[in-house]
Structure formats: C-alpha cells, structure tokens
C-alpha cells in the first residue's frame, strides 16, 4: 500500500482528528496519500495518536485560538469531523449540540477564510433528511432536508444548520475557500461508541433473540474506513479545483456540493445486527427469535419512556429507537460514485470483522489491566 499513494494532499488538518472518524482520516492520509504534514485539532489529544501527525488541543468554539493555530499550521485543506456524540435529549445536550455543531463550525469556517485555507471538507450526517418517522427509499441529494419542528432529533437539526453554513461559505468573496459536505450513514468500525457498541451491548445483555419489526427494513451502515476514504477523495478534488483557473462543469463539481456516503451495500437492519453478533462469537441461527411487531415496539418504547420518566432516569429503550430499528432508510450514492469516483474499499463484512475485532482487543486489554 505504502508504495502506491493515491495522490497529493499537501498539508492536512483534521479537526476532531483524535475522534472516531477523525483518527481514521489521519491514519489513512498518512498511509495512503502524499501529505507534507498531517495535524489534528481536538478538545483532548490523548487518545488515538499517530506518531507521524502533530496534535493541537483547542476548543473549536474558541474562534481566536483556532485562528491562531490555523495561522501557525497553514494547512491546504481542513477536514472538519468534530461533533459531540449524538445521544441525549436534555437541555444541556441540546445546548452542546448547538454550540459545537453550529457555533464551532462557524468558527472553523471563519478561521479557514482568515488563514488562506484552500479547501474545507465537512462531515455532515445522512440523518439530516430523515424525520425518524417516515421511511427513506433509495434517497439521494435531491431529498429535502428536514428542519425545525419536523426534525425530531435536535442533533440532526444542528448538523443541517452547520452544513448550510459550510455550503454558503463556498467561494464566498473575498475568500477563495472551497467547501463540500459529506453525509455518511450509520458509521461503524474501530473506535465506534455508538453503532457497534449498541449492538454489542444488546448481545452482552442477552437481547440478541429479540427482533423489533419483521426485518424487511433496509438500512445503510458504513465502515468508517470507507467514510475516511471519501473525505480524502473530496479533499483531493477540492484542491484540484482550487489549482484550476476554471469553475468545473456542474456535473463534475465538488465545491458547494453535498454527497451521501455509504458502503453502497444496504442491508436488512437485523441482518447487520446478527452479523455483528456472529463476529462477537454468537452461534445462533434465526430459530427462536422473538419478533415484536413495529406497532408494539413503539408502544413499548413509549411505556419505557414513561416509566423511566417516573423514576427520573434516562430510558434504556425509547420510541425513537423502536422506530429507527424498524424503519427503512437507505441511500443512493450514485453522485459520490460518479463525481468523487468513490468506491468502498472494505465490504460490510470486512468492516464488521475489523470493528468487532477491535472491541474484543479492547476488552482483553481492560481485563488485563483489571487483573494486574
């Protein structure tokens, strides 16, 4: 791999480069691309370190400090992946989402514009077109973004707001900054604290025999390495555009555009869960699976919310989770394949093997620590 590099990226700065997606981008940029330097800006730079990258601690909502760092590093391209974990429905969680996703992104844009960065790639989310209630069949970039009262997930609302800022900042005179936004769906892999962690928790709690809905609902899950790859492809193409005196034709344009990114391999929701459990050591088939209908799941979700509301604890199961695991939500990524020339580098199965393998390793390390 090391001998065949995919292209030149110059100096790359990954915001959130110590996070789940961010550190995969840092690693891939260093292993598969020609970069003069790779840096990360993160709230805390203690985990997911790559020896060949430089690390800078900074809260991105601190615009002054961020600009200072950018002026020092002078990156050609900034890849902005930083975002809080998308869970929690409390006032504090909402405030955090708005502050980091919208305020932080605004600060990143301004810092890029003020320090002469050529290209900004933003990590949005495929959930910005979902209202978590209605199914999405083969949705592409023409689908409307769900905003305001229709958007029941405040996290998605803030991601959509930030994406809008990023796209507006494309070629915003007098700055020459080029921007693009990627919308990955259901990211999983090594270092994942949501998708795989959730399925593995269900497995550890012996919930793997329960199935909500009839499992005809198709869903997109995307291996994090593929998402990282798409970001670097977009960065490369933005830099190429920046180097060219002409604005590209609309059908091959990357700047000012939005792209869905998936594994191009939607699957039935519970089949993905079973493949994860299988990788974690399950030897169960599908006989004896307890199927709870979609309607019943939603009623149970409501009951659980009411119950935990009474005892004043965050609910372990909610209507939203019941709906998300029984709804159809998959995307058509023809645009990314055509314009970014994106093709997934890892299949779903390879992604699961890597991701679950990482979890198993971490557990072994934890156990070793405990026994010491």
């Amino acid at each position, binding site marked *: 791999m090391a001998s065949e590099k995919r292209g030149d990226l110059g100096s790359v700065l990954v915001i959130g480069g110590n996070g789940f997606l961010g550190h995969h981008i840092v690693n891939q940029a260093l292993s598969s691309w020609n970069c003069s330097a790779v840096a990360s800006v993160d709230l805390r730079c203690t985990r997911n370190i790559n020896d060949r990258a430089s690390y800078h601690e900074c809260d991105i909502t601190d615009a002054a400090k961020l600009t200072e760092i950018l002026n020092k590093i002078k990156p050609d391209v900034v890849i902005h992946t930083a975002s809080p974990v998308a869970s929690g429905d409390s006032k504090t969680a909402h405030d955090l989402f708005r502050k980091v996703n919208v305020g932080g992104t605004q600060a990143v844009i301004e810092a890029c514009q003020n320090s002469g960065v050529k290209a900004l790639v933003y990590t949005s989310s495929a959930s910005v077109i979902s209202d978590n209630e209605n199914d999405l069949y083969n*949705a592409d970039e023409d689908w409307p973004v769900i905003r305001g009262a229709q958007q029941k997930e405040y996290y998605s609302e803030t991601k959509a707001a930030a994406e809008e800022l990023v796209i507006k900042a494309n070629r915003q005179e007098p700055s020459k900054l080029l921007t693009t936004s990627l919308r990955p769906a259901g990211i999983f892999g090594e270092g994942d604290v949501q998708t795989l962690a959730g399925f593995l928790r269900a497995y550890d709690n012996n919930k793997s025999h329960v199935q909500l809905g009839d499992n005809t609902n198709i869903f997109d899950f995307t291996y994090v390495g593929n998402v990282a790859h798409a970001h670097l492809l977009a960065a490369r193409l933005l830099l190429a555009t920046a180097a060219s005196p002409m604005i590209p034709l609309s059908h091959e344009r990357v700047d000012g555009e939005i792209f869905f990114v998936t594994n191009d391999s939607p699957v039935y929701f519970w089949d993905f869960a079973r493949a994860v459990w299988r990788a974690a050591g399950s030897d169960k088939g599908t006989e004896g699976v307890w199927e709870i209908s979609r309607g019943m799941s939603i009623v149970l979700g409501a009951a659980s919310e009411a119950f935990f509301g009474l005892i004043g604890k965050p609910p372990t199961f909610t209507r939203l989770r019941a709906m998300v695991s029984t709804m159809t939500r998959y995307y058509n990524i023809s645009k990314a394949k055509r314009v970014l020339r994106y093709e997934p580098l890892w299949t779903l199965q390879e992604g699961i093997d890597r991701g679950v393998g990482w979890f198993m390793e971490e557990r072994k390390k934890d156990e070793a620590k405990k026994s010491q």
Partner: protein
Amino acid sequence: MGAIYYLMHPRELRSIVQWKLWHEPVNRRDPKTESATLQECFRFLNMTSRSFSAVIQELNHELLVPVTLFYLVLRGLDTIEDDMTIPLSTKVPMLREFHVTMDQDGWQYHDSKEKDRELLEHFDCVITELKKLKKPYYDIIKDMTFKMGNGMADYAQNTEMIQNGVQTIEEYELYCHYVAGLVGEGLTRLLVASNLANPKLGERPELTESMGQFLQKTNIIRDIHEDWEDGRRWYPKEIWSKHVERWEDLFDPKYRTQAVECISDMVLDALKHVEDCLFYMAGMRDQSAFNFVAIPQAMAIATLELCFRNPAVLERNVKITKGDACQIMLESTQNLQVLCEVFRRYARRIQKKNDPRDPNFLAISARCAKIEQFIETLFPRQDPKKLSQEARAKQTQEPTMSTSETAIMIGVVLAVLLTMTGLMVGIAWFMGARFDNTFSDTAKLFSSSAGSAGSPTSITGRDEL
C-alpha cells in the same frame, strides 16, 4: 402430487385453475397456413422442449418461426454433443461444420442413440424451413450456429476439464457463456432485428450475457445431484473448495452443513446477475417477447430460492410445484412492475431463510437488498420533488403529532384512565361506599358553584351541609 397436497395448499390450486382458465395467449399459431414441414418442426419443438415450447408458440408471428428453428438447430447441436456413442473424431468436425450442414438439402443423421435422435433423423424438414426465412434472421441463426458449434467442440476436446471439472469462476462463466450466453446473444439479435426489443440492447451485450448466465447457473445449481450421478461437475472448484476438501464430500451426510453453505455461495454468485436481467427485460417492446424472456427468468429466481439452504438438492432433483409455476407464469406475463414484485418476493424469501452462521450471511443479505434497491430505481415510490413540496407545506404549519401517534397516545391514556377508575370505584364499593346519592350531590355542587362562580363561600357552604 395428489389431491391431498392441493387440499392443503388451496392457493396453489387456485393459481393452476386461474392459469388454465384465464391465460389468453398473446398470439396463436395458425396450423392451417403452415406447410407440412413446418408442422413437423413444431412437432419436434413440442417433443424436445417442455419448458420453452409453449412460450415460443405464443411469440409474435414475426419471430415465431425464426425462434422455433433457432431452437431446433441448437437442439440438434446439443443432441450431437451429448451423444457419448459418437466417437470424438466424428463428433468434433460435425459440431464445427454444423453451420454448413444446415445449408445442405435433405441432410439427415441416423447414428445417434440420444432420446431426441428423431430430430436428427428428419433434420431435412428444419433445413427446408430455414431456407424460407428472411435473410437477416437466417444470417443470425447461421452465425450463432457457427459460434456454438465451435464452443461445444472445444469443450468436447477439453479432456482436462472433463476429468477434473471446472476450476475457476472464470472457467465456469465461460462454460455458461457457450451453452447459454450465445443463445441469449442470438435471441437478442433476433428480437432487435424484428424491432420487438429496444435496439439499445444490441449495444449492451453484458445485459444479454447476464440473462444467459442467470438461467444456466440456476440449472447447474439445481442439477448438482443429477450431474454427480452422471459423473459431471459444473460447480467451480474455486467455490466448492472453500467449503469441503473433496468434491464427493458434498454428498456425504457428514458434511451436510458445509454442502448447504456451498450451495448458498453458488446462489450468491448467481444472484449478481439479477439487476442486469431486470434491466434487459425493461427493453422489451412487445408483450409476447416480454413473456418469452420473463417466464424463464422468474422461474429461475424461484428455483434459486427453492435450492437455497435446502439439503434435498443434494439427494434428488428438486422442482418448483406446479401451483407456484402457474402463479409465476401469471405474474410474468403482465408487465415489468409485476415481474419486479416476483423478484422482490423471492429475494425476501431468500433473505428470510438466510442463516447468520453461513459464511456468506451478510453478503447474501446485502445482495437481496441490492435487488430491492435496483427495483426502487426502476419504480421509485418516493419523489423528491413531491417530498420537498410536502416539507415546505409542513414547515409553515403548526407542529403536530402524526394522527397514528395521537390515536395511540389517546388510546393508552383512556385505557389507563378507565382501568384506574374502575379499580378505585370497585375498591370504594367494596369498602361500603354508596353511590346512590353521588349523582344528585354532584349536580348540586355544579349548580351551586355555577351560581356563585369565583366565590369561595359557596364551597365552604357545601361542606357544611
């Protein structure tokens, strides 16, 4: 299958009755206008083909005779190829020269021992009729005969493959190309030449190829047991060696799990052609042409579903039931959308049977979902323009809960309320409460409070009563 089976499966019986009673052929042959030799050709068609004779005879009159004769020429080649009593030194030149033979008036062959030998014994009838064809159709048949004859001769001489079986997936697909892909090529050229299909299909040979591959691979998967008994082996080693060490192990009950997983692997490989096949069939411009190509394809996906995770495939020849076959024929003689629903239904059945312990579990699931996704691109159920309009309309409205959610919430609240009321009234009654005065008291309360609204004295006044 007896009457009892259909008593247990009335839906299948219904499909059979429906097909027999209501299926109206798009076109019918008219034997009165046919020459004696042509009638003889149709007799051979009925004799040699169970599955294709009916659909061929319903074809548009423009192609009825060309396709029939094309089929008979290929059947003639096939009979020579399959006949193990003909020595290789005779067989190979016969196969390679068959495109010349089909020009020789009065040619007959009497040395075959195959069950379809009668066709070769009276092959002069076919030759007579071939000469009456329009030139473009005749040329296509001749060209395809040349290609197929040479392909078959190559395989007949390939002792390495006959002894050791097919090795790689590439070899496997090349074999399928010679026995089915070329037939598909010939048919596409006839369909395009007669304008019964979109001429664009001529520019997309990979679609035609997939049509043949899908049918041939399905046959190979299904016939594993029969071929094993006859000493033939078409499953490529590249696939089966992932599951068992020796070919014979597939038929050893000890390795049943591995054998079933090997079949899954083969089914997964065959399913990769489905999107191309659906796309190809979208190019048909004539109902009879559509039926002609759609019925075998729909039967193939149903057969794959039948073979998938079915250990019986290793022990005997499995077949779709007559009821299912009639149901499929009903649905594949209408339009592409109905046909797509057949494909979706069988894809979902395969997905439902899929086992998480199968090494290809997730790949199979993804393949089935991919078929559904492709059908979605042909017949999208969501229109982004309409969705955008709706979203804009909603944006201006008051945020409300959806009606179904509201109904559920109201239902839950009411149910809880009624249960609790019942319980409390019950307990009160059990403890000796009297309800006979309740209503009059309540009435009094309301009338008095209404009389002097806002005055606290009225309430204290009541307490004093």
